[in-house]
């Protein structure tokens, strides 16, 4: 299923954009509507052909760019993502659910039947998959924009890059770099506050340390993150309980490799 590289002609002669939702909170597609200053000019450059959150005008595919929010959690989702891929020249995943399973992927480490019984009076009415999985587990994707929620400026950059057929300029360094750029005093070094900043992907602008709290890794792992070393420091130098360390690896991006693998190591170590 290699994406078709030919541009799609639109009736309005503008590239056609589609926004798709799978299992999610809607926050990432909302980031597009939060572009109060750019929304109308964006609409001049793109034909917003399918965006259920914003428009009842629905055009047929194929689409030049598809933004996909949410993870795959139902049999119907599994079918629909194949169709979305078939209809899309470029498929971009937006947010932690689409790129790393989202908070709902905590079920992957538990018993989903027990979850269903705990929440529903009639579990037999519920159809759901055992796991919540990222989009890339099902179809090839062209770009993944991390974050829970994504940063709207990064989203605009990604859309603009694909419109102009150039690589997106999305920094893949750590939150620490953003923290330094903001001129913050390191809350870990100065106050001993546990912080996920060293292993977390940039994009939020280091807001948590700027608000006097440790980063909780909602942007997922940075490129080549050394989560093992970070967890060692948390446990040995900051006396953070093993369970809290695991919780910080398993929250909004629990299936991102660097977090998933390390959380499993920590879980195993905690038992021995």
């Amino acid at each position, binding site marked *: 299923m290699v994406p078709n590289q030919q541009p799609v002609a639109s009736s309005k002669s503008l590239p056609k954009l589609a926004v798709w939702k799978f299992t999610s909170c809607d926050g990432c597609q909302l980031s597009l509507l939060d572009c109060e200053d750019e929304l109308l000019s964006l609409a001049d450059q793109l034909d917003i052909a399918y965006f259920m959150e914003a428009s009842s005008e629905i055009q047929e595919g194929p689409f030049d760019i598809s933004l996909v929010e949410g993870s795959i959690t139902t049999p119907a989702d599994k079918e629909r993502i194949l169709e979305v891929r078939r209809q899309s020249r470029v498929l971009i995943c937006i947010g932690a659910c689409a790129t790393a399973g989202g908070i709902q992927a905590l079920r992957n480490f538990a018993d989903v039947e027990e979850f269903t019984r705990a*929440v529903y009076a009639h579990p037999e009415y519920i159809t759901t998959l055992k796991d919540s999985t990222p989009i890339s587990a099902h179809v090839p994707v062209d770009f993944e924009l991390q974050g829970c929620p994504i940063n709207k400026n990064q989203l605009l950059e990604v859309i603009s890059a694909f419109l102009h057929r150039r690589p997106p300029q999305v920094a893949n360094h750590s939150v620490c770099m953003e923290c330094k750029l903001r001129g913050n005093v390191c809350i870990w070094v100065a106050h001993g506050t546990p912080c996920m900043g060293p292993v977390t992907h940039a994009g939020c602008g280091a807001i948590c340390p700027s608000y006097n709290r440790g980063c909780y890794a909602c942007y997922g792992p940075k490129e080549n993150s050394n989560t093992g070393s970070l967890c060692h420091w948390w446990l040995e130098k900051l006396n953070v309980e093993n369970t809290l360390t695991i919780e910080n690896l398993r929250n909004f991006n629990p299936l991102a490799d660097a977090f998933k693998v390390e959380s499993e190591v920590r879980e195993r170590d905690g038992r021995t």
Partner: protein
Amino acid sequence: MAGHSKTIKVDYLARVEGEGALHIDYDDSGVQKVQLKIFEPPRFFEALLRGRDYLEAPDITARICGICPVAYQMSAVHGMEDALGIKPSGALRELRRLLYCGEWIESHMLHISMLHAPDFLGYPNAVAMAKDHPEVVKNALEIKKAGNALVRLIGGREVHPINVRVGGFYKVPENRELTALAEQLETARDLAEQLVIWSSTLPFPNYEWRRDNHYEFVALKHPTEYPMNEGRITSSKGLDITARDYENYFEEEHLAHSTALHCTLKNRGAYLVGPIARFNLNRDKLSPRARQLAESLKVAAPCLNPFQSILVRSLEVLHAFEEALRIIGKYQKPEEPHLATKPKAASGCAATEAPRGLLYHRYDIDKNGKITVAKIVAPTSQNQKTIEDDLRLMLPSFMHFPEDKLRGLCERAIRNYDPCISCSTHFLQLHLNNGQGQSS
């Protein structure tokens, strides 16, 4: 209270966005059955919260809804504080109200300008509407932007704020940071006033079908304030209880036709939460400018026309700006950003007013602060039965409409409620069944 939490609704209702379906059974004598089917995939928040630290509740529950994360955070921290027996007051309490004002503004404006207004003027979306009504849409985006600026300053970012903590905040703003926002808020407030006047001129459909079937309006009531974070749960038919009594008076039902639970008042049935319910029970507590405008536009309470929810939302936006400016005018930075918190085995409840209506949370935590039980009832599940009732009462007069027009009318009636399903503006698959098993 642990142990009887079987019929619990999860988050999905907070954003029933995506697909829903409406099934209508009818025969010669009229409409027999109306079922609004909602099949948002379950996300199991109430189950996955178990075992997590009590301090994580506001961060995790925020992820239930990207459109109203502050509502979830406010209910979560108040629930936890109820359990721990602490009560932030003074400037900390005011800052929470200020943050909630920001969310009311941006969330209401999203619904008003992008989802609801195009309905009245016959456009598929706000972008198309902007071509003919550029000033209305640009001003609406400007108002929304001011709400987002408020949430960003107090909460750190617009979607899923990071600064909300059990006991208060991680960091509180400097006086100058708030006063620097005042000018933008004043400008946006004046635009909001124009918006109220504009929305009062929209062509509202009549509501004859509701004249003899009044809603039971349910909203918080506070002695001196238009309700946001606190108050007793009251109704237009005499209910007057605390949040701790919620589960004694309200119950949830899991029906086969919808993954969304239906919440009803025990022995009484459907009720209505949201802006119209708040307005009808608290009109006298609106800010002076919003109250005067409501009077001059003859928006009386009770407002019984659900299509006027856009007008009431606009009034609440104006109110939220005035409230925000009042809080900023009096603000003195508190000495500590939060009260000290120490976990103990306890149970706590809270109800707050999300933009879409009453939101109820209950938590049990153990001595180490780990959550053992979580229960969350979102506004949409509380309104779902009322939405079905609205359709059931409304449809007999319109069954002669062609299918497209009928579907459009049903969508509009549902969108009045701003259930999260309204996010998808064209969500309805309409199935008509004439009693002989034939779909038309």
